[in-house]
């Protein structure tokens, strides 16, 4: 919201600079986000005098002039038809920036002749649309004086960010009130006693829906002249960011900006039956608003109608049919109070937010409605002439100030400091809150413009913000009560440390994904009702989408290999609509995704380059499981017939499905524009964390006796899985076998067709003695007979 500092000072007498006032306002909660000094635009634009003026030798329409700014004479080429010697003009010197268009003045040649400045029109100065020629001023304007001064462009405009609780500050008076409270002074409100309390009989007002319109005031004025507003009024509106239109509309806007009450003027001649009905639309219908747009009105929308038809969308925008025009001579002036929620719903539905709806939906002051009307009437009589025929004030649902008890000790209880009662009373009274002490309790009567102050805590906030947050100290040396400790991100961080230590980079990608990818991975993916980006309307059902996208980005950026992980949430609709992880009907899980592609390592002097393969992702899984001490309770199962992957293995931990490892298939890769293999692992964080043994692990004594290493190789059929053999050996439950490693796997013609050799290395050890040969031989013979017996295998000599 734009606040003119000159305007503000009409209501409050303070002697501070705009900068200081801005700081004060920010400190009371009206944040000044920007300041614009109007005069800045007119730097180097001064009053000048044309000394000489001759035709340009090389151009018919140009004149060559000499202009003085009182200090120096400048050669100036001017294109205006009305330029002549002796004129007093607006002169832009080198360095000036022309307000309309931002053109910078510097020395240049025009058709061979040097020009060092510019004589300006009103349009070029951004004052009005007059571009018929240069502006010619009165002869007695002092040459060399500031153009800004002459034009009255000396205001400072404060741009204030208004939070939704400050409906009281949506006007110049409202903003002045906060300043008055801080500077301990009072407000000067314009006197409206000159406008009589006449009851108008020319028209009727019927409020058919008092819930949505508790109060409606209408004033009738006849015999007005619609014309341009005087300059001072236009200047006020322009400073506040509104465009002047004509005196009637400008006055309604002026009053709104002054006191916060939105108003509307109807052409009385267009009000059929001279009746105003405030009612809901009743049926869906079309209506043309005064911005010439046809809008569809819902049945529940509150309208201002005459005897036959709608005239305005209540509180939002008037209609084209009853708009003030140059030929209007009689008006009905509306000043009303509408239900905030209703206006907000209408404004939202229409996608139409106006200065009026903005104020009504936050809450205007129902008891300022008649004041505003009279204020506008007084100004109209003064600026547009006419005869005031009185007003109608329908107020079926009266809204009165309310009382709040403020217990003085509560102030200290919340703020942590004691503020003297006198100080508190002063603050509240200057804010318009009446105070009465009733034995330690302040009875506060809240004016209706402070609709947000409804509880004791709200009164305390009013006190705190005017007292100043900076005057409430930070507590020194307070002792906090022990509250115990928990960390729900501890497991995340444990994995994060492990994975970064193991050479993985962490990524955080956008959770919103395309329809193509969401539905590729899930039949139950969750869609947004109102996606900002139509291309990404789904919540990711798996981290795989994010990670594949990240890989695609990096491939595109020329990164030759990547090992990444993300810890994030994934979403799905739950099959059972009545159940969900957090919100009924929805599943949300925290997952760990790990992906790798391309080079593991580039070629160096000590090693060849190597690309990632399945055993990198499998090894990552098994190492991770070892890190979590879950390696003995995890199983990997091959999943048949998964269309998205070349192969996929589910990971089970303690008999719960924890996730999977996979190599994505061609369809998936192509949909991400990838042409090289991506190896992927996704694990559920809560399954993983749930499986980890809580508490401290107990020490198990390690064997003091040496371990013995024995190698043994077998010849198998070529489709034999090594893992089955390892598992079979473990299944023997031979306590001396402590570890089995697969040493090598190879095929060779000497082994026979369709055969391969797998060699194992076994670690044998006992806890209570050194193994002797007999024991070792016995174990190895058992192993050999077990393997050759269970599989189609022969020992390789």
């Amino acid at each position, binding site marked *: 919201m734009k606040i003119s500092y000159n305007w503000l000072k009409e209501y409050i007498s303070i002697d501070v600079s705009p900068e200081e006032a801005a700081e004060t306002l920010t*400190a009371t*909660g009206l944040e000044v986000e920007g300041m614009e000094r109007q005069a800045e635009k007119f730097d180097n634009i001064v009053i000048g005098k044309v000394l000489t003026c001759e035709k340009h030798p090389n151009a018919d329409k140009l004149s060559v002039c000499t202009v003085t700014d009182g200090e120096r004479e400048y050669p100036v080429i001017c294109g205006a038809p009305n330029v002549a010697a002796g004129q007093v003009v607006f002169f832009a010197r080198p360095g000036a920036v022309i307000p309309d268009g931002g053109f910078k003045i510097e020395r240049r040649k025009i058709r061979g002749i040097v020009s060092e400045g510019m004589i300006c029109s009103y349009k070029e100065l951004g004052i009005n649309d007059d571009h018929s020629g240069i502006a010619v001023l009165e002869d007695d304007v002092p040459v060399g004086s500031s153009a800004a001064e002459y034009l009255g462009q000396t205001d400072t405009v404060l741009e204030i960010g208004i*939070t*939704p*609780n400050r409906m009281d500050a949506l006007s110049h008076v409202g903003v002045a009130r906060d300043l008055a409270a801080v500077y301990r002074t009072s407000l000067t409100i314009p006197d409206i006693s000159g406008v009589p309390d006449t009851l108008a009989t020319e028209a009727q007002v019927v409020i058919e829906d008092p819930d949505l319109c508790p109060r409606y005031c209408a004033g009738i004025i006849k015999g007005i002249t619609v014309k341009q507003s005087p300059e001072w009024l236009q200047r006020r509106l322009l400073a506040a960011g509104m465009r002047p239109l004509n005196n009637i509309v400008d006055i309604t806007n002026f009053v709104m900006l002054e006191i916060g009450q939105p108003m509307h003027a109807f052409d009385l001649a267009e009000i059929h039956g001279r009746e105003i009905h405030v009612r809901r639309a009743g049926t869906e219908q079309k209506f043309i608003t005064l911005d010439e747009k046809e809008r569809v009105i819902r049945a529940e929308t509150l309208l201002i109608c005459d005897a036959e038809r709608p005239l305005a969308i209540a509180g939002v925008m008037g209609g084209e049919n009853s708009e003030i025009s140059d030929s209007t001579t009689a008006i009905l002036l509306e000043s009303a109070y509408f239900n905030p*929620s209703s206006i907000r719903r209408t404004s939202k539905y229409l996608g139409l937010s106006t200065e009026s709806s903005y104020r009504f939906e*936050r809450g205007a002051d129902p008891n300022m409605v008649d004041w505003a009307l009279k204020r506008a009437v007084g100004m109209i009589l003064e600026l547009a002439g006419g005869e005031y025929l009185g007003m109608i004030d329908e107020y079926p649902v009266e809204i009165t100030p309310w009382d709040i008890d403020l217990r003085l000790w509560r102030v200290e*209880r*919340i*703020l*942590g400091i004691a503020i003297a009662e006198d100080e508190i009373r002063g603050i509240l009274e200057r804010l318009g809150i009446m105070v009465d002490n009733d034995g330690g309790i302040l009875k506060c009567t809240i004016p209706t413009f402070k609709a947000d102050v409804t509880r004791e*805590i*709200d009164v*305390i906030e009013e006190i*705190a913000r005017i007292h100043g*947050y900076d005057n*409430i*100290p*930070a*507590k020194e040396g*307070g002792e*906090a009560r*022990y*509250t115990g*400790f*928990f*960390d*729900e*991100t501890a497991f995340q961080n444990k994995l*994060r440390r492990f*994975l*970064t*230590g*193991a*050479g993985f*980079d*962490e*990524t955080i*990608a*956008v*959770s919103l994904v395309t329809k193509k990818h969401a539905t590729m991975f899930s039949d139950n993916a969750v869609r*947004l*009702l*109102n*996606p*900002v980006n139509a291309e990404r309307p789904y*919540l990711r059902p798996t981290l795989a989408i994010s990670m594949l996208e990240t890989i695609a*980005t*990096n491939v595109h*950026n020329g990164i030759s290999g990547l*090992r990444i992980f993300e810890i994030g949430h994934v*979403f799905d609709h739950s099959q059972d609509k009545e159940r969900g992880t957090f*919100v*009924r*009907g*929805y599943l*949300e899980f925290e997952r760990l995704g790990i992906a790798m592609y391309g080079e593991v390592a580039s070629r160096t*002097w*000590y090693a060849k380059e190597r690309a990632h393969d399945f055993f990198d992702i499998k090894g990552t899984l098994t190492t991770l499981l070892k890190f979590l001490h879950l390696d003995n309770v995890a199983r990997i199962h091959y999943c048949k017939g998964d269309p998205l992957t070349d192969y996929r293995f589910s990971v089970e931990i303690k008999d719960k499905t924890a996730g999977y490892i996979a190599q994505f298939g061609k369809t998936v890769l192509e949909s991400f524009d990838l042409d090289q293999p991506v190896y992927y692992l996704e694990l559920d964080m809560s399954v993983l964390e749930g499986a980890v043994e809580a508490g401290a692990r107990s020490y198990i004594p390690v064997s003091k006796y040496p371990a013995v290493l024995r190698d043994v190789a077998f010849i198998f059929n070529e489709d034999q899985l090594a893992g089955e053999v390892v598992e079979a050996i473990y299944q023997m439950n031979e306590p001396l076998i402590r570890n089995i490693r697969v040493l090598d796997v190879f095929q060779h013609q000497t082994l026979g067709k369709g055969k391969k050799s797998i060699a194992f290395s076994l670690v044998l050890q006992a806890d209570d003695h050194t193994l002797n*040969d007999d024991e070792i031989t016995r174990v190895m013979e058992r192993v050999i007979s077990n393997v050759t017996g269970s599989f189609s295998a022969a020992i390789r000599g």
Partner: protein
Amino acid sequence: MLEEISKTKLEIEAAAANISSREDLQAFRVTYLARKGKIASLFARLRDVPPEQKRSVGQELNALRSFAEELFKEREKHFEESRKEKKGFLDYTLPGREFPLGHTHIVSRTIADIQSIFVRMGFSIATGPELESDYYNFETLNFPADHPARDMQDTFFIEKDVVLRTHTSPVQIRLMESRKPPIRAIMPGRCYRNEVISARSHVQFHQIEGLCVDTRVTFTDLKSTLVAFAREFYGETTAYRFRPSYFPFTEPSAEMDISCFLCHGDGCRVCKFTGWLEVLGCGMVDPNVFKAVGYDPEELTGYAFGMGIERTAMLRHNIPDIRLIFENDARMLRQLG
């Protein structure tokens, strides 16, 4: 048999002494130590030895094998060393064998940095879901339906009463519902806003929320906690100010500004020439929030605060565009992690 063993031992000793090349070394291994070598064949004959001698012969054979192995290793070592000495040159400028290096994402790192400060001040850490009901995201946080306060946060809807959380504040509610006061916790997490993606705003971002509830918590505690945080996180000499603001779930509400650490208050583009940077929102927990979770606002008071992680990280690390943060270009990940 025993005789043969001691003979072989002498032979081995002599053969080892005669090793003068790597070829000799290989030959030694094949002759004595290989699977079909002399020692192995002696072992093979063990089964013919009368049972009462088996034990002593076995021991001798084991000793013989160890003897041969040791000699082999010793000679092998000798050759390795002599090779190095002969080369006599170590190009230490060749790059070493590095292990792969991983990096935490800048968002995680910023969260961790902030967390560690609050953890030392006695705050626990809680988390919650990103897909939320209207009840947790708005209603219990004192956002009435049809109230302009709801415009402060452009919301992604899944259905009428289900949203993507617009802030981490719902975790406050879940926390208060599940635990008894006193509570002191911070709550990091991902949030969503239905905004057009640009250099300054994105559809997702992260927040850290803080909540402290006890019987004697006041605005002065709020200030001391946040001032301590700002001094530690942004630097000892950081100036600060609190100014009134509005959040539906706190009353009174405040914004905390710190002196711009880029221009030190002189005014620059980042602080929009004000000298101040808005770093967090805070306030005293609104009594309606306490009522929504069944706490007695007469007995308990509390403060809450929240700050945006991406904004913090962008300021701290001079990141010009929020989109870079979620693009995950490996070169950026490795720079900042």
